[in-house]
């Protein structure tokens, strides 16, 4: 599904440069649910961004679903992002002047679907996250948990192969976090491959595999017994 070899990334800081990823090797199979952990500055978000094609690696190979991701033009990257990836952000990143339905349907717009189809699919995914009744509300009329669920519905709308979540529960309270995790687990149960960045141990333990980063290298990569979030809900 996903294969990364000898990935390097550095950011220029003034005259010198900061070496953030120092040769990462990682492969993820279809249907996995992986948590990438590490303290701040360990490079975990950078890794996720490179996987998400939001950022580019300096060196190394990245193969997603048998497609080598390298030297992409912006246009190609846009097509791949739309086809392969769904994003869930810590700060939701909903477009604030679009209602929930329009937000969810936006990736479908960029897939070139007809409006009728977009509405149909959008409503279907909102239904899935339990927010069908909120379809015509603007983001600022929703709670944090609801916003994140709209964002998840949006990530799912394009039917991506891989869901990428950057601290999906970072801006939420414990109870809402568990609800969101429960939902993400149910997506994984249905077969979606999920990759998430978190620094919370209990959230990481709700995944099936934990990859620990420190100073740009993988310290530990182990499969864990998944803690079901449903028991807390």
């Amino acid at each position, binding site marked *: 599904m996903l294969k990364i070899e000898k990935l390097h990334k550095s950011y220029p800081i003034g005259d010198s440069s900061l070496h953030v990823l120092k040769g990462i090797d990682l492969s993820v199979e279809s249907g996995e649910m992986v948590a990438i952990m590490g303290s701040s500055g360990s490079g975990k978000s950078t890794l996720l*961004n490179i996987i*998400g094609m*939001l*950022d*580019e690696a300096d060196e190394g190979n990245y193969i997603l679903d048998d497609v080598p991701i390298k030297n992409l033009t*912006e*246009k190609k990257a*846009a*097509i791949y*992002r*739309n*086809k392969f990836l769904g*994003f869930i*952000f*810590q*700060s939701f*990143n*909903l*477009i604030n*002047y*679009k209602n929930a339905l*329009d937000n969810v349907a*936006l*990736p479908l*717009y*960029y*897939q070139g679907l007809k*409006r009728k189809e977009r509405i149909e699919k959008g409503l279907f995914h909102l239904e899935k996250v339990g927010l069908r009744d909120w379809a015509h509300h603007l983001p600022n009329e929703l709670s944090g948990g609801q916003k994140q669920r709209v964002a998840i519905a*949006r990530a799912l709308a*394009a039917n991506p192969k891989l869901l990428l979540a950057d601290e999906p529960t970072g801006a939420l309270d414990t109870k809402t976090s568990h609800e969101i995790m429960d939902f993400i687990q149910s997506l994984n149960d249905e077969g979606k491959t999920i990759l998430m960045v978190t620094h919370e141990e209990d959230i990481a333990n709700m995944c099936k595999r934990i990859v620990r980063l420190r100073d740009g290298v993988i310290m530990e990569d182990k499969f864990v017994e998944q803690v079901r979030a449903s028991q807390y809900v």
Partner: protein
Amino acid sequence: MFDIDLWREIFQSINMNRTRSLLSGFTIAFAIMLFAILFGIANGLNNTFAEGFVDDAANSIFIRTGRTTKANKGLQAGRRIQLKNEDQDYITDEFGNKIQYITSRIYKNVNASFRNEKNSYPLRAVHPDHQFLEKTIIKEGRYINQLDIDNSTKVVVIGRLVEEDLFLKTTALGKYINLSGIPYKIVGIFTDDGGDNEERMVYMPVSTAQHIYGNNDYVDQINLTYNPNLNFDQALAFGNSIKKKLKDRFNVASNDQRAIRVQNMAQGTKIVGQLTFGINLFVIFIGLGTLIAGVVGISNIMIFVVKERTKELGIRKALGASPRSIVSIILIESILITTIAGYLGLIIGMGILELATPILEENFIKDPSVKLSLVIGATITLIIAGAIAGYLPAKRASQIKPIVALRDD
């Protein structure tokens, strides 16, 4: 290709960000409005000047006489100088190729009547060339011709308003009008851009008037136009040399200002030309200033808009928006707002001009209108400027890595 979804996106963006849209629209509308009003007023000023001189040919020279104020060559002051037919012939002989048209004038007032209608009108007895000097436009029939002069025929050419006054709704051409007891055949009806007074006028051959009023060869005034190929200095010199020759001919002292007066329109024409040029220069300067202010305004707004939308554009990119769709969504929105606002500004500006016309015309600003094409040109300039000003930041925004755009501030 018409992409309804793209337009839906754009209208949603405009509609949901009203303050931003209104502000950028206002800048454009205001600039175009000012532009239209300014050009309108300047045009009005130009019209005022142009109208002051539309009545007569711009290259006219008028020769009038009076009484001498200085004794000269044994002749006393206070002597009356009288122009005669032979003086016109003398000028023609002396200056032949420098003269374009030449005519004499005799002024009279006549009581005219046709059937029961009566009125009094100024009469000018003239030569055929007078038509061109006065810019008389023949509406029906003909003007005075050389045969009329040679035969002293009793014919007249009357103004449009004379026909209206005396002949009511019927045509005057070919009928006989009674001027102070003598019937004259009407051979032509004319109009004149110089205003109503010029159209309440009767023209008759010089020779006819001389036969009927006094049986002499006197004329009141000699008017001529100089060859339009003469430049300003040559035209002035020509006027002065006429004056000098005539003073010699009538034994008038060279420093006598009253006996022979030569009024040369070249001077006035030059001043008006300079004034018009000055006004136009001023207007172009201010018009350009307004446009530049508009361009700077729209550029600022576009840069601000792109900055404000950076995060949204980042989200769109993360969801699969191509760089092209990012650029087009920003540009089309900007062009749409500029076009609508420019159109509104145009309408408002034209409307204000229209409403203010009566007030402005009282203040010597005649017909303050502005060419539609000019204002549309200004609007298009702003649209293009807005597009260019929007394109660069939009292009940059489309190339920012989404991760930079999405970074929390």
